[in-house]
């Protein structure tokens, strides 16, 4: 069942990735039947305006800024440059017109260029491209860098007039959970629609007194969620301080602490050990760093390595991988909560664990 579950989800992820790669961009593609190289034309001292002169006066996205064939023929006349049909047309024996898809959002080239914008400011990397495609149109973040409400207006309908549903597809499923991953690498995209002060701070920086995140009875049912999704709690709450605000101040202990199997002899079922292996942060949220309860049993009283079988709390290979650590210079480091015999002599006590007599 487990393998099937993870296999199915892994297949879905791979399928999704494959499908995603098959698409070329958020802007609609133009189905060209042409061959063209921006790179080679720009290398021949042709400028953007040579072919896209309309852009200087265009005030709407509806304008067709693609050059007419007659303009190509001014150079491709058989003398200055080749006039062979196959040079530009993929299928010269079956020519068809280029159909432009509906254009969105609204854009005024003239107004932007009058304010000092250069073509490459928005159409990055087009100078090294062959045919231009959706990947050479600017992402919305590029707009927002000026349209931030201060330098230029940031109202939605300035560019998206008449569009009813501007919510991106990513917001339509489990967005309360997934937005953390979408925002982790960059928040620019989020801030285009959600001013940080109005949205993020409601949950992430304020005292969230509205029941937007948890149900009102969550106070009484949270033990269920904590046990099942403890790591998820740490997405928002610092467990080392948040839990203890109530649990320590009011003396509330988790119900499982009262079970007979919670602490029992080594070699038998120890629920607290299972819990610690599953999420040690759960323990750390209440148990003090300075005098942890764990030390009552998980101590090293005889300072002899290997005599505490069943009480060793370190992962396999811990000593081998420990390397140089703060315990060499700091006599107050937490290691000495358990390993109390610190002689600073090779072969003796805790130091002897790694530094044998020959050292």
């Amino acid at each position, binding site marked *: 069942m487990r393998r099937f*579950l993870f296999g199915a*989800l892994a297949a*879905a992820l791979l399928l999704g990735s494959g499908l995603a790669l098959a*698409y070329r*961009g*958020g802007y609609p593609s133009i189905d060209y039947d042409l061959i063209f190289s921006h790179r080679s034309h720009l290398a021949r001292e042709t400028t953007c305006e040579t072919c896209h002169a309309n852009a200087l006066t265009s005030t709407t996205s509806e304008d067709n800024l693609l050059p007419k064939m007659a303009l190509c023929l001014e150079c491709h006349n058989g003398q200055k440059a080749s006039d062979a049909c196959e040079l530009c047309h993929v299928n010269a024996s079956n020519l068809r017109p280029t159909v432009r898809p509906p254009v969105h959002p609204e854009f005024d080239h003239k107004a*932007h260029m009058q304010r*000092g*914008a*250069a073509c*490459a*400011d*928005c159409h990055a990397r087009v100078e090294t491209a062959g045919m231009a495609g959706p*990947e050479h149109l*600017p992402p919305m973040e*590029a707009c927002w*860098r*000026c349209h931030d409400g*201060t*330098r230029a207006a940031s109202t939605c309908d300035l560019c998206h007039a008449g569009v*009813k549903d501007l919510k991106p*597809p990513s917001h*339509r*499923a*489990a967005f309360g959970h*997934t937005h953390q*991953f*979408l925002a*982790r*690498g*960059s928040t620019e*995209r989020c801030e285009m629609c959600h001013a940080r002060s109005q949205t*993020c*701070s409601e949950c992430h*920086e*304020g005292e969230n*007194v509205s029941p937007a995140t948890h149900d*009102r*009875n969550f106070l*009484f*049912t949270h033990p269920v969620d904590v*046990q*099942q999704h403890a*790591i998820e709690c*740490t997405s928002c709450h610092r467990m080392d301080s948040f839990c203890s605000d109530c649990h320590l101040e*009011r003396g509330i202990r988790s*119900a499982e602490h009262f079970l*007979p199997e919670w602490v029992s002899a080594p070699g038998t079922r120890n629920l607290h050990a299972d819990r610690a*292996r*599953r999420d*040690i*942060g759960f323990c*750390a949220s209440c*148990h003090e*760093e300075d005098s*942890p309860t764990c030390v009552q049993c998980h101590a090293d009283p005889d300072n002899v390595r290997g005599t505490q079988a069943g009480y060793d709390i*370190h*992962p396999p290979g811990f000593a081998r991988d420990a390397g140089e650590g703060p315990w060499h210079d*700091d006599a107050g480091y*937490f290691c000495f909560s358990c390993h109390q015999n610190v002689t600073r002599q090779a072969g003796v006590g805790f130091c002897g664990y790694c530094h044998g007599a020959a050292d």
Partner: protein
Amino acid sequence: MAGSGLTARLSGPEWRIPMRGAFLLVAGLWLFAAPVDAGAGPASLSGHARSVLYLYEADAPAPLETRAQALQYLRLDFRPGLASLSLHTYGSVRGDWSDEPFDRGRLYFGYLEWAPSTRFGGGSWVRAGRQLVMAGVGTGTVDGIAARAALGPGVDLTAFAGTLGAGERDGVTLHGWDESSRFGAMAGFRPHPEWHLAASYAVGRRDGHLTDQLLGAHLRAEPSRLLTLYADARHQFATRTLIDLTGGVTAGAWRGWTLWGEMSRRNPDLPADSFFSVFDARPNKEARAQLSRAITPDISATAGYEATLFDDETTHRVRVGPATRWGGIGFVWSDGAGARQASLYANGRAAIGRTLSAHATFNYFDYDFGPGTLRDSSALTAAGGLEFRPTPAWSLAGRVEALRNRLNEYDVRFLGEIRRGFRVGGGR
């Protein structure tokens, strides 16, 4: 009054702020003094304020008593209209109005920003002060300096350095560099307008000891209106632990269907200088899937499943229910580690005229922590409220909440809230 002030400390004398007085001063100022949209000019001051009063009566712990908690939030953004400078602050004070010290204050952020308006495609800035830095594994609040530079088409770098920002319990304390420090950087790369890759690195130290040394990789792609992909990995060098590996995909918008799936492998993340960091901890593996169908623009239905796997134990969770723009109902069932739980929820909201709206919620939980612990139990909650919004800048809201469970036979609460946004000066 002893204990009724906030303490600010930076390797020197302590400064105490009379918080109850500050609360009244701030509340009075914004309520009666600040004009809304008071004309245009190069400089501007904008922000919003929110005053909350939370009254509750509870019979546990006995005896029955009434408590009054007050919270005051204030957000200010000041642009002097010169040199691309701006100042941003957001903070709150809170306390129990009756007898406890009014001593909980938090400065969430307070920073000066310089964001030069270069050419199109800028996006560079420098910020100094307390701020929430969003930089991959370095995300968090620091008291220090952060900068972002757009290095070229699709390439940007964010770097920060400072002391750790105050936590939940010490809202305004400033730490010295030796006490706690954090620095890091994130490089972002956009090979395509809809693909964003980033790598981030952060180092944290506390009392001279290394607490965190994190490396992260982040991917977000929205290659079409049908698909969103994301992947995230975080490795903690300080404890040699891969603490998070997550990948997900949302595929949708085909005849209203949206499918989301995610897999993750997560380890507990503790500071390296914590006693608990040396324990043998193992990862959780988690899988989630959700199918939604938008039946009409206003009505949708969702079914979701989650599984958390740990060693030989699996926890299952199922959530189903329809939702509309006027509210929804749903059923949640989970079974696994520690407990079994079933719950029903319903919520609704409606506009009453142009300025008034009403909302109500209902939840019923039935849960069983397992043999040997607590007996089977249930919880029932209900809430209802009204919001009056005469203008976009003003709102007044009230809500009554009630709860009944094995601990409380009687728990009724009232939340009152006034919000106000304001803007003085600046262009339109």
